[in-house]
């Protein structure tokens, strides 16, 4: 029962958290750094929200982590180093771009596989059904 209650409260908190997006002025050195920061945090998940990026989230968790990432940028850390640090701390769940791993093989290769399968079917059907162009009579009249 306690667990259910906790879930209910969590669900309620989640709905509220979407109500406001973060507005968080940070003292960037220049435009390039701000762009880099926005690009990086847009592709990271706020771990305590339903489905929000670190950039957009208004949760305290996101606020602190944005500060942390900002500081790491000032220290000259690269995007990859920052991501590695985050993954070590919070697991790959924080990445909106899931890295290729045994558990994500189907995710990454699923679409090419479907495309390939569909492409083969279409190719076979078209090959079997299509006639040479000269064998098709010109149709007079409205072509629409």
């Amino acid at each position, binding site marked *: 029962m306690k667990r259910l209650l906790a879930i209910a409260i969590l669900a309620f908190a989640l709905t509220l958290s979407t109500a406001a997006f973060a507005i968080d002025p940070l003292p960037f050195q220049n435009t390039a750094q701000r762009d880099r920061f926005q690009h990086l945090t847009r592709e990271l998940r706020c771990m305590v929200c339903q489905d929000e990026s670190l950039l957009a989230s208004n949760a305290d968790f996101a606020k602190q982590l944005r500060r942390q990432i900002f500081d790491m940028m000032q220290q000259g850390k690269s995007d990859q180093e920052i991501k590695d640090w985050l993954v070590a701390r919070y697991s790959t769940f924080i990445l909106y771009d899931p890295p290729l791993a045994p558990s994500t093989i189907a995710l990454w290769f699923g679409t090419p596989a479907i495309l390939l399968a569909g492409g083969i079917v279409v190719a076979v059907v078209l090959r079997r059904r299509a006639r040479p*162009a000269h064998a098709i009579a010109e149709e007079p009249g409205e072509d629409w």
Partner: protein
Amino acid sequence: MNPELGQIALILALLLSGLQCVLPIVGAWRGSKPLMATAPMLAVGQGVFVALAFGILMWSFWINDFSVAYVAQNSNLDLPWFYKLSAVWGAHEGSLLLWMLILNLWTVALVAVLGNRLPQAFFARVVGVLGFVAFGFLLYMITTSNPFLRLFPVPANGADLNPVLQDPGLVFHPPTLYMGYVGFSVAFAFAIAALLGGELKSTWVRWARPWTNVAWGFLTLGIVAGSAWAYYELGWGGWWFWDPVENASFMPWLIGAALIHAQAITDKRDGLRAWTLLLSIFGFAFSLLGTFLVRSGLLTSVHAFAFAPSRGIFILVYLAVVIGGSLLLYALRAPKVTGGKSFALASRETLMVIGNLMLTVACAMVLLGTLYPLVGEALNIGRISVGPPYFGPLFMILMTPLVLALPFGPLSHWGKADLKVWTRALVRIVALAVAAGIIGFVLGARTFLELLGITASVWVMAGVAMFALKRWREAPRGKRYPFEMLGMMLAHFGIGVFIAGAILTRSMSVEQDVSMKPGSNVQVGSYDFHFNGVTDTPGPNYHAQQGTVIVSRNGRQVVVLHPQKRTYAGGQVQTEAAIQAGVFRDLYVSLGDPIGDDAWSLRVYDKPFVRWIWGGGVLMMLGGFAVVLDRRFRLKKVREPEAAGTQPDTGAPRKLAEGQT
């Protein structure tokens, strides 16, 4: 007393929908005219009772009847009247009732428009299938999601509607979206009726086409409304996040777009019959999936879904019955004989088939990315996030062949394309796209993305323009642009507009979070934002802090913006962005928090071409609607054939009024 009447109305509607499912289909099977004749009456009767239930729920909101639990949870004495009415579909139970009401609207419209124009047996089956869909939904509502449950003791005031939903966007977004979702049930019903009746000819596809186009148009509008709503109401400035909720509406849209084209081939060339049937089934299946994904709580977390297990199990069983049953029927009955007029490899058919492939694979990709984290969580293989960096690039890759081929589809003939026409068009389109790229470069576009956006958009628009020109030259006056063709041109042009909007907004936007004291300035792009401080303003059911920001360019004032931060009675805080909307750019200011020393945090945006995203969507919607007006789809009234009594089950579709073919 009232809510119980609503309850009774729902139960009566359930009974009628059960009859509507059984009687007409049995009638069509046994060849009983009286049984088939019950179809329109049952459909209308069910519609009346659902409308009654809907009206009663709305009335309960209107008079603040907080003894109804659903009203108490989603309304409040201070809520403005229009939000009281739209709060009816503000949460799970009421939105299901809206879904039902819209299903009845579609069914009644079908009865009114086609009731005496289609062969009786076929029509009876269509209405029967819709009855089955309604039965499942009503049963679900009554057993697990009853909006009329009473609350005791009656609270003095309600909990209020979620402030995010207190917006004109909520008034329009769900009804239009559901018009789209539910509209696909008509194409679905036609397909199932054809399979049930063993239709050998595909005449039914022409009857189904206008309905599919309208449904797709509404779905487009619903998605556009949702996207625009998120843009200004969430104070975030984005327009699409590949959130599961968004994906849920996008999947049926993709299938719908494929279906529209497949139906056109089947209608005109008699080809792709089985594929059209399959897409009709999947279009509706994805609509159901979308409705349930969003409303079941499954997306919040697998655990929240398990929170109300009866709902979850019902949904799974219902989906399994509808989708599994349809696919089984399809496997047994789909036309084995491949038919259709012959075509060469270089033809409009081939291009449309490739487009269909890309759209369905894109839908599969979205489905995979949306469900993967849920499946991963359920199977305990670790929590995975799948977001914009996954969907965005994959979607662009999948759409590239489609966008490249798009101008050539209309320019090709059915059967075989004239290669000379293709080469000539290719040369001109390339020239125009490159010229546009150069002009863009001269005007200051430097990044790869910006140039890509400009050339791709002009690629598509130039294709439409060339087609329009070709028709102008070749077709006789008065027959140049029939409505069906006009719809195609509008929708395709809309895609070009959308591409420009989506890519240019992404690459050219400037976004800044700033802290400002009253009297200070900030420069964003070529605009100067001057902050004049914050004042208190009362609202109907909230209290607002309102900022004043004067925007100027080169010393000349452009606009004064008033972003708000509203605090509602329940303590919820909601930001209201102030937006200066323009054809070529939006200026966007959103108010954050006081950060001490009189200073406030603000988000300031310069978003070029963002309106083109929705403008493109609106054009696509208009395209879907325009098609309906075409003469091709006008059906003459038919008298019931004398033979119907003796040879009913074949239900052979007779040739009806033909437009031009």
